[in-house]
C-alpha cells in the first residue's frame, strides 16, 4: 500500500502514544458506565410483593415497580369500549423456595385468593382482556403506583399453573 511510506514521519512519541490510547479507552469505558448507571436509576424496575408495596406505600409512588400477585376472579371488570381492565391481586411470596415449601404455585395462589386476611392491591391496565386473566392466575404487573393506592400497569403477564406441575403421573389401566 502506498500509505506505508508515511511511516517515516514520526507522528507521536511511543510512550506518549500509549497514554493517549489509555486515556481514550478509559473515556469510552467511563461514558458507558455513566450511561448504564444513570439509565439504571430512571429505568430499573423494583420487584416487590403486594405486602411490601402496601407497607412502604407512598415511598414507592413514581418508581418503576414490578409486582406479582394472585388474581381474585370476582374483582375483574372489563370495559370493551375503553379497554380498561381492573382487578385485585392478593399477596403471594416471590421466593420460589417458599412457594415450593407451601406445596407449589397452584396451591399458593389458591390460598392467597381464599385468605380474607391477605393484603390486596387493585391493578388497572388498559388493553384487550387476555383470556388467561381469571381467578387464581398469577399476574406479574409492571408499572407505577398511583397516589390513590392503585397500581397502574403498563405491562401485564399472566401465568396459570399448568397440569404439568399439578397431577402426578397415573398408572396405565391394567
Amino acid at each position, binding site marked *: *500500500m502506498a*500509505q*506505508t511510506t*508515511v*511511516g517515516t*514521519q514520526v*507522528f*507521536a512519541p*511511543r510512550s506518549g*502514544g*500509549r497514554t*493517549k*490510547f489509555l486515556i*481514550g*479507552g478509559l473515556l*469510552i*469505558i467511563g461514558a*458507558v458506565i455513566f*450511561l*448504564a448507571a444513570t*439509565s*439504571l436509576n430512571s*429505568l*430499573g*424496575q*423494583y*420487584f416487590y410483593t403486594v405486602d411490601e408495596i402496601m407497607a412502604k406505600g407512598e415511598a414507592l409512588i413514581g418508581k418503576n415497580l*414490578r409486582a406479582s400477585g394472585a388474581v381474585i376472579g370476582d374483582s375483574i371488570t372489563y370495559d*370493551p*369500549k375503553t*379497554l380498561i381492565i381492573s382487578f385485585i391481586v392478593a399477596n403471594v411470596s*416471590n*421466593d*420460589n*423456595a417458599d412457594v*415450593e415449601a407451601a406445596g407449589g404455585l397452584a396451591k399458593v395462589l389458591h390460598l392467597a385468593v381464599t385468605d380474607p386476611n391477605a393484603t390486596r392491591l387493585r391493578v388497572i391496565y388498559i*388493553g*384487550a*382482556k*387476555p*383470556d*388467561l386473566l381469571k381467578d387464581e392466575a398469577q399476574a406479574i404487573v*409492571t408499572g407505577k403506583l398511583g397516589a390513590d393506592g392503585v397500581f397502574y400497569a403498563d405491562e401485564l403477564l399472566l401465568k*396459570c399453573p*399448568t*397440569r*404439568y406441575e399439578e397431577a*402426578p*403421573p*397415573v*398408572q*396405565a*389401566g391394567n
Partner: protein
Amino acid sequence: MVANLGFFALLLALGCALYAAVMAPLGAYRHRPAWLASAHQAALLTWPLVTLASLLLITLLVTNQFQVEYVYLVTSRAMPTYLKVTALWGGQAGSLLFWSWLMATFTGAALLRKWDRDRALMPVAIVVMMVTLGFFIGLVVFFENPFARLWTLPATATQDASTIISFLQPAGALALIPPDGNGLNPLLRHPGMIIHPPMLYTGFVSFVVPYAFAMAALVTRRTDDEWIRTTRRWTLVGWLFLSLGLILGGRWAYDVLGWGGYWGWDPVENAAFMPWLTATAFLHSVMIQEKRGMLKKWNMVLIILTYSLVIFGTFLTRSGVLSSVHAFAQSAIGPAFFIFIGLTFVASLLLLFRAWDHLGSDHHLDSLLSRESAFLLNNLLFMCIAATVFWGTVFPMLSELITNQTITVGPPWYNRVIGPQFAALVLLMGIAPMVAWRQASARQLGRLLWWPFAAALLVVVGLVIAGMRSWGALLGFGITAFVTLTTLLEFVRGTLARMKTTGENPLTALITLIARNRRRYGGYTIHLAVIIMTIGIIGSHFFQVETQGQLKPGEQLSLGRYVITYDGLAEFLTPDDRQVARATVSVYRDGVYVGQLHPRRDFYLASGEPMTIPGVRSTIEDDVYVLLVSWEPVAASGASFKIYVNPLINWIWSGGFLFILGTLIAAWPDASELRRRVTTTVAAAPGRAFSGD
C-alpha cells in the same frame, strides 16, 4: 433394557473421557507416544458411545416408553414421530445429552483432523476437550439422567403411596407406566424452535476447539500464531452457527411468542449473545496478530472469555438460576456448573500469566489514526457491549443476593445503553476498512470519505423533508447510509483495480476479486449484511405502531395505512388434541383489499397450555401482525385483536441470509491455502523425525 444400555454407554463414555484426560498429559510428560496414542483412541471412542446413548434415548422417545421419566415429560402419543425425535432437546436432561453428543462430535472431528498436523499441541488439547466433555457427561450421569424411570411405592400403614424417580428399582417399588405423556411444550413445536437449539449448541460447543488449542499453545509455549491458524475455520464455523442460532431464535420469538417483537433482552437470549460478542471481537483482533504480531495476550483473553461465556450461557439456561437465585441453590447442577466455570476460568488465567513473557508484541502501536487503533476500538466497543449485557443479566441476581431487593432492567435500559455503542460500532465498521495500517493520514482518509459523508447527509435531509422527526432514527439512517457507501466503495475500488490490470469485464472482475480474497470480501459481505439488518432494527424499533380493540363481526380497526375488518371466527378440535380458535380478518392497505389473515389461538388439551399464533402479512416494506387476544364463545359478541405494524422488519431476516453467505465465503478454503498446507505438512514431516521429541 434400552434405558440400561443407554446409561451404560454414557458411563463408558465418561470413563473414556477421564482416561484420555489423564493419559494424554502423562504420555507427553513421560515421553510415551503409545500412551498418548491410547488417550487419543479413548477420546475418539467417546463419540460412538454418546451417539449410541442418544440413539437409544431417541428410541425410547419414539416408542412411547413413558416409564422413563424424560419420555413422560416431553412426549405424548399424539405427537408425530419427527417431534418425538426433536424432543431429545425439548427438556433439561435430553438437552444436556444432546449437548454432550455435539461436543463429542466436534472434539472427535478436531482430534481426527489435527492428530498428524499439530501433534505438539495434542496432549493439552485432549485434556481440555475431554475435561469439558467429561463434565457434561458427568452432569447427565449424576444429576440429570434422561434414563431415570418412574416407580411407585405402594401405600403402607404409615405412609401414602408415593412416586419415585430413580434409575434403579428402589426396594419394594413397582414400575409406574403412565398411559400417556405430557407432550412437548407447545412453544417448542415450531420449526424455528426445532432447529434453533441445535444451531446454538453447535455454535457453543465448536468454541471449545479453539479454546483447547489456545490452552495447548500456552502450556507448550508455542505462542506463535499456529493455534490461531489451525483453529481459524473452527472459530468461523462456530461463529456461523451461533449467529444462525441467534437469528433463528429471533424469528421464533417473532412467530410464536406473540408480542410483536423479535428480541427482548431476555436472559436466555443474552446468554447466547454474550459469547457471540466476544467471539466477534476475537475474529477481528486475530487479524492484527496475524498481520502485525500484536495483541497476543489480548487474543488469549478473548478466547478464554468466549469459552467461559459459552459455559456460563449453558449454565444460565440450564440451572434454573434465572427464575431466582434461591431456585438455583436447590438445583444440583447449578453449583456444579458454578464450580466448573470458576475452576476453568482461574486455571486459564494462571496459564496465561505463566506464559505472559512469551506473548510479547512484535510491533508497537504507532498512531491513533491507524488500522490497528481501529481494531482496538472495535474490540473495546464489543467488550463494552458484552459487559453491558452481562451486567444487565446478572444485576437482578446480584441485587437479590446482596440487598434482598430484586431490581430488574428491561429492554428500555438495554436499548438506551447499548444503542449508542452499537451506532458507534456500525460507524466504525464503515471507516475502519479505509484506514491504512501503522499510520494513516487524515487528509487521505478525508479524501476517501467526504463524498459518502455528503451523500449520507443528503439522505438525512431527504428523510427530514419526507417528514421523519425522530432524531435517533435520522442519526441511525444517516450512519447506515454512510457505511453502505463506504463498504460498497471497497468492492468498487477492488473491482476497478482488477479491471485495469487484467482487462476483465466488471462482473468477472468482481467475482474473481471475491474468490481470490475470500476472507477480506467475505468479511465485507458480512458488513453489508449487518447494515441491512441494522436498517431493519432501526425501522422496527423507532416506527413500530400498535393498537388493539374489541370487534364485532363486520367492524373494523385501523392502524397507519392499514384497516382490518373482522369477518368471523371458527372453533374446532384437531386430531392431535388441540382446541383451535381461528379468526378471519380482511386487510386493506390505503383502502385496497390485500388479503385475509388468520390469527389463531391453539389450546393444547394434554398440557393445558395455550399458544397464540399471529396472522402476518409480510412485505419488504412492513409487516402487519395481527393477534387474536380473546373472544367470546358466542361469536356475535365479538373478539379482541391486537395489531402491530412493524416497518422494515423483513430486512433483518434478509440480512441474515447475506450474513450466512458472507461467513461461508470467508470460511471456504482457498486453493492457494490448500497448496500451502500440503507443502507445510511435507516440510514438517522430516523435521519431526530429527527434532527428537
